[in-house]
């Protein structure tokens, strides 16, 4: 499934991405959890010196039904999204949206503080911010 991206772009960008993914898959060692492109929800990860920020693009969910777990250096985002309702005697012309149970696992850097984690859900976007440990922060050492 890794040839299909969740939010496709134009053809050339797709070809470029495909080539990069082929390289990732064959030349280098891919991640043990696969090249999760095209799976739901799409995830962006970023970091600052003081935090790690994870963005999960998961529209149309009830925030209470999203299960976010932090365990042994991995973060799991799981839940279920119902497929669109199809009334009787109707025709489905296009069916691209994800429906069903989902689970994504992300490996976190070693220096995160599992006690200070903050998750927000807004506009269908789940933002999880995890602070890095105090002792891992860069600091200036005074010379006496």
């Amino acid at each position: 499934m890794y040839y299909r991206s969740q939010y496709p772009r134009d053809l050339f960008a797709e070809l470029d991405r495909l080539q990069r993914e082929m390289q990732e898959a064959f030349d280098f060692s891919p991640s043990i959890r696969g090249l999760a492109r095209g799976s739901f929800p799409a995830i962006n990860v970023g970091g600052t010196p003081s935090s790690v920020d994870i963005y999960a693009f998961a529209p149309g969910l009830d925030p209470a039904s999203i299960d976010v777990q932090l365990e042994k250096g991995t973060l799991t985002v799981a839940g279920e999204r119902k497929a669109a309702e199809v009334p009787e005697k109707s025709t489905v012309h296009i069916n691209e949206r994800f429906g069903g149970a989902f689970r994504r696992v992300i490996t976190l850097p070693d220096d995160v503080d599992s006690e200070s984690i903050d998750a927000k859900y807004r506009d269908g976007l789940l933002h999880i911010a995890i602070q890095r440990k105090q002792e891992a922060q860069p600091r200036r050492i005074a010379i006496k």
Partner: protein
Amino acid sequence: MNMNESTQVAKAAEAARNEAAMLPPVDVIEDTGGITLYADLPGVPKDKLSLQVEAGTLTIEGEVALDVPQGMEATHAEVSLPRYRRVFTLSKELDTQKVNAEFNQGLLKLRIPKAEHAKPRRIEVKLT
């Protein structure tokens, strides 16, 4: 508006159309009363969503607003562009005056009813 300004506006609109955008995944379901369209636009706030019906085409556009802390460096990105755009050609029997839109948590639901004259009716077959 003078000529110069209007060409500038036209140029700006064209530039917006040419900007790279992601295609949001959609579901389109048709029943006897009309068409229901669902589109996934996660990260788009209500005021950054634009829906347009013009000359028989429906354009869905949305800008992603990420709440990014200062100095963040992206390490992994599956969503790599800040906007979505998708255009559909509508068919004549749809009543574009009565489109109903709901937008909740990044999920857009559009209901486009069929015009009264286009709704199915049973045709009596007369025997002569």
